[in-house]
């Protein structure tokens, strides 16, 4: 049954009612509701992070001590600068995207091409930055010791600053080699050995009187990790089980493993959105170049992909707040 609805706007969704309650084309409306559902997915992840964080409120890692790297500045303590830079890159690529949408509304093909290009470059730079951030987190900065019950013990100098294990660990040569499948039992293998053995760290700790340890526990008064006096430190180290360097899904030198799990999962999921956004942007970019939307008479497709791109920026604003600021 064919129903003809008189309409003066061919781009709009004529969903059986002449009043068109939502006043948007089918594609644009669906993009909005997809974004809504995706926003609920992300808020699910972030509130799950909130739940776990409230559960371990007294022992959660302090973001300022975790993300302290900046390119070309080795060994300096630069909290937040790098992630602020990433935020600016993404906000700026959002600006170029909205400029492309604006140019599309005025049917200026060349301008759309230029701004879409800048948006794609911005997206790729952001992805590279995120890869670098992951690399630093995975490699770690100071190293720590894990106790039998999973708690993390970090080492600090006399001023309360964290120090690297390599700075004090005893320099004994270890005969222990990694067990691989081609030596001994073929069905048994183990992960890469840590660069230092537990004996080296503990011997080094004993011979350096200036250093002590700190636990994961946060002092409510100063909001800093509690430092254990040196004379009580050996009681903790007696329970040590292994040396930890860096972070992965199973262990995290900065504290709770769940922090690493949520970090990888949420920033990874966001990064995957950025990646798919870049790919969709590239497809639309070439469509603009070959004049698809010029022939169609409107650039609504640029608007729709723009909505998705801005949503990715919107999510990052929240990830930035809850992972790095709060």
């Amino acid at each position: 049954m064919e129903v003809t609805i008189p309409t003066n706007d061919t781009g709009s969704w004529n969903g059986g009612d002449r009043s068109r309650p939502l006043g948007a084309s089918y594609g644009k409306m669906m993009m909005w509701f997809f974004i809504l559902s995706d926003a609920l997915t992300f808020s699910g992840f972030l509130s799950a992070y909130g739940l776990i964080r409230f559960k371990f409120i007294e022992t959660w890692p302090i973001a300022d001590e975790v993300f302290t790297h900046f390119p070309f500045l080795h060994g300096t303590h630069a909290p937040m600068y790098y992630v602020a830079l990433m935020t600016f890159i993404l906000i700026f690529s959002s600006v170029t995207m909205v400029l492309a949408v604006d140019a599309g509304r005025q049917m200026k093909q060349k301008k759309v091409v230029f701004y879409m290009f800048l948006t794609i470059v911005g997206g790729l730079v952001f992805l590279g930055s995120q890869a670098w951030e992951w690399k630093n987190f995975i490699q770690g900065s100071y190293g720590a010791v894990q106790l039998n019950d999973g708690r993390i013990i970090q080492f600090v100098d006399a001023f309360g600053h964290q120090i690297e294990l390599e700075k004090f660990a005893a320099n004994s040569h270890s005969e222990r080699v990694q067990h691989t499948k081609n030596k001994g039992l073929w069905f048994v293998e183990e992960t890469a050995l840590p660069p230092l053995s537990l004996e080296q760290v503990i011997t080094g700790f004993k011979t350096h009187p200036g250093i002590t340890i700190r636990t994961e526990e946060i002092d409510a008064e100063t909001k800093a990790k509690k430092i254990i006096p040196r004379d009580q430190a050996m009681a903790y180290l007696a329970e040590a089980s292994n040396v930890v360097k860096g972070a992965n899904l199973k262990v995290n030198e900065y504290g709770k493993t769940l922090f690493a799990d949520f970090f990888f999962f949420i920033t990874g999921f966001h990064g995957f959105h950025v990646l798919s956004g870049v790919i969709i942007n590239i497809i639309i970019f070439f469509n603009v170049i070959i004049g698809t939307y010029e022939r169609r008479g409107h650039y609504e497709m640029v608007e729709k992909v723009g909505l998705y791109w801005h949503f990715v920026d919107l999510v990052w604003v929240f990830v930035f707040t809850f992972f790095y600021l709060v």
Partner: protein
Amino acid sequence: MTAHAHTSHTKLIWKVFIILSVITIVEVVLGIAKPDILHLTQLLGTSPLNLLFILLTLVKAYYITWFFMHMADEKKNLRRAVVWTAVFLICYLVALLLIEGAYLHEVLGSLTRW
């Protein structure tokens, strides 16, 4: 400002960009400085600094949604269908999960030995 006006909004876009940048810079400066009066005091179960960060984030979210995503140009019905659904469901979810998280802390906190 209407959806099909073919006038350029470039000025507005740069204005929004400046607002977003200033908010981000304020957040970063506060995040690095962490003034004791905001960081070490308590307000509504957390520090005033955290509440300020969340408030600034919501302001940023408003500017991105309204001006970059052109929500301001959409019909009221679409705007309400998207924004209120998100606001209601997210508030509900966050409230439940944070209350449960605090409960878990209360129950398990005494069992953890430091």
